């Protein structure tokens, strides 16, 4: 019970803090809404994505350091294991400093979903939904939907194989049609509903018993490169729990337009 009340305290505290957050939309760009068919939309279930603002870059080590200075309860020593597992900021040298091994401009990784969510809330933003993220990420340099372009898909697949790309700095990959950098090629990114495909009542899981995005469903549904690349993202997301902190996993924030 004691730990439960602690959780409540943290949640309440978090809520109070978030009201103090600065609303800022610099370094964000507009992603114009539209309709797209996601990977799992085998039955042509088109999804409508409203227009939203998205961070141009993933959150950097430096950005996160600033956050920790304002909200020390998210330092490694203070964060609750329930909200951030033992890998949380494990590559940081000290409790409140990243040390000399990490580049200040490299993307922050080894952060849990709770931490990422809190970070965004403290900026007056939120994590993108899977659909928002996928919608923005289907753009290449020149078009909003490059999913049918073989070279684009091969580039993504190549990255999925390349080790240690988290060492690179933000902005070091390409700028896409919307003006967003690094959606592919740097780190994986947290999404608000990262595990919804596995647990939502809308997913194929409820219909097709082996749709856990491993053996069976990959064999049935994926016929082209586009799906292979997307499958890897969904598989990765599906392997996560909200308190996991992973070396190749960072995040960026988005913001609704109506709230402006």
């Amino acid at each position, binding site marked *: 019970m004691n730990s439960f009340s602690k959780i409540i305290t943290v949640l309440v505290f978090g809520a109070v803090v978030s009201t103090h957050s600065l609303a800022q939309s610099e370094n964000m760009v507009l992603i114009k809404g539209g309709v797209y068919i996601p990977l799992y939309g085998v039955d042509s279930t088109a999804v409508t994505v409203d227009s939203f603002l998205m961070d141009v870059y993933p959150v950097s080590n430096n950005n996160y350091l600033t956050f920790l200075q304002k909200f020390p309860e998210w330092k490694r020593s203070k964060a609750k294991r329930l909200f951030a597992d033992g890998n949380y900021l494990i590559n940081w040298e000290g409790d409140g400093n990243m040390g000399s091994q990490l580049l200040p401009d490299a993307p922050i990784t080894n952060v849990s979903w709770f931490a990422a969510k809190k970070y965004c809330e403290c900026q007056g933003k939120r994590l993108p939904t899977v659909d928002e993220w996928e919608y923005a990420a289907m753009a290449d340099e020149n078009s909003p939907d490059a999913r049918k372009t073989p070279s684009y898909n091969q580039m993504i697949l190549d990255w999925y194989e390349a080790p240690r790309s988290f060492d690179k700095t933000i902005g070091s990959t390409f700028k896409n049609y919307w003006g967003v950098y690094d959606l592919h090629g740097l780190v994986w990114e947290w999404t608000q509903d990262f595990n919804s495909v596995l647990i939502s009542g809308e997913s194929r899981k409820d219909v097709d018993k082996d749709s856990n995005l491993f053996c069976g469903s990959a064999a049935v549904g994926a016929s082209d490169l586009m799906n292979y690349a997307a499958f*890897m993202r969904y598989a990765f997301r599906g392997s996560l729990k909200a308190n996991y902190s992973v070396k190749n996993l960072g995040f960026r924030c988005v913001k609704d337009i109506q709230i402006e």
Partner: protein
Amino acid sequence: MKTALIENIFMKMFLVGTLLLLSSCVDSGEEKTYEATEDIPASREMIAELTAPPNVPRGVGKRKAKKLIVNMEVLEEEGEMTDGVKYVYWTFGGSVPGSFIRTRVGDEVEFHLKNHPDNKLPHNIDLHAVTGPGGGATSSFVAPGHEAQFSFKVLNPGLYVYHCATAPVGMHIANGMYGLILVEPAGGLPRVDREYYVMQGDFYTKGENGERGLQPFDMQKAVDEDADYVVFNGKVGSMTGDNAITANVGETVRLYVGNGGPNLVSSFHVIGEIFDVVRVEGGDLINTNVQTTLIPAGGAAIVEFRVDVPGTFILVDHSIFRAFNKGALGMLNVQGEENKKIYSGTQEEGIYQPEGGGIQELPDQDGVAESEIPAKSFSERMEFGKITYQQTCFACHQAEGQGIPNAFPPLAKSDYLNADVNRAIDIILQGKRGEIVVNGEKYNSVMTRQDLNDDDLANVLTYIYNSWGNSKKEVTPAMVRARRNQH
């Protein structure tokens, strides 16, 4: 062999008898039989010994079923496919194929799958030896920097493949995520002198076979089943030269052979041997006196043979272009006394003629036909020479003259080649066998004599001497004729 076996049986009977006499109330060491293997109790814990290919862990022998703890780490790391060609392998335990797991019927395996924090992707494991949904895949799905644990009881004896089953499954397997788990029957498999672990796999790279640099996986080629490399144990040359597996004359060799795929079925053959025993598909069915055994993708076989004569025995996928052009070639070196009764060893050109694109030697009758169109200039000589090279030399010496490590010497920047042009001509005219040193590396194999006329031979040598950093000599038909007349 037979007498030894009978003696052995007598010995066992004697021992068991003695034990019974000495202590009739103590466990005789012979195992109680159970109606169902699931009823076999697992006593005590034991950490499983895991080995990288071509080695296998010690046999289970007479040990009882145990709780066997398997610690398997998934590593995504860069390795070398062949000389100068890098590839990012995804591995179970840091090797391709992954670590060999050896169990016995009734073991309760507690499996710990650890996904290294530096890895980019989630992974899991589907073991074909598991009775349960996904072969363990559902229970072992694990993010980078995390560990998953599940347990299973091995019920059926046999040799089984394990592999990663995370989407996209084909890609995870194509990158090397497969291995073998052996389930021995109670009392273990019969003892043999040597045991090795061999597993075939096909690889799909963006660049063609031999193209240098870090080669990414090519999904389209994988879908088309158009393999650039077909190899044993993860890379070209993993079992040739210094890495060859070994045995002594008179010993019995057992190979645990798997095929990870992802696409191709293997026609596994050992050149110069007949399998005395094949445990077909790794199961209970025993076939004897087999030349080539089929190993399906995601399947395995156990082959056993006694080696009777010394020499190098070549392991191949007898879909033979895979062996000589894509890498599916390994070597077993057998040492010991010759046995002329079994094999004379006196045939002129050695035990095996590696297949090249060119015409192999035939008894010649009227000398050599003249080239249809002799080269009129140096550039034509180069042009024609290149064509001859592609037809005749390419299969072994490779596109860039780089050769194949430990099997076929390089022609590029070759000190041996550049040192003596007449020797080079002689080798093409007469063939060459035995040990030579090229650029500091020892090679010991056979090149057959090539049936080329004076023009073609001059052209191809000129091409070789004027490519890949060699000494830029021009070889003329007259020079070739002069050497030919020497013999």
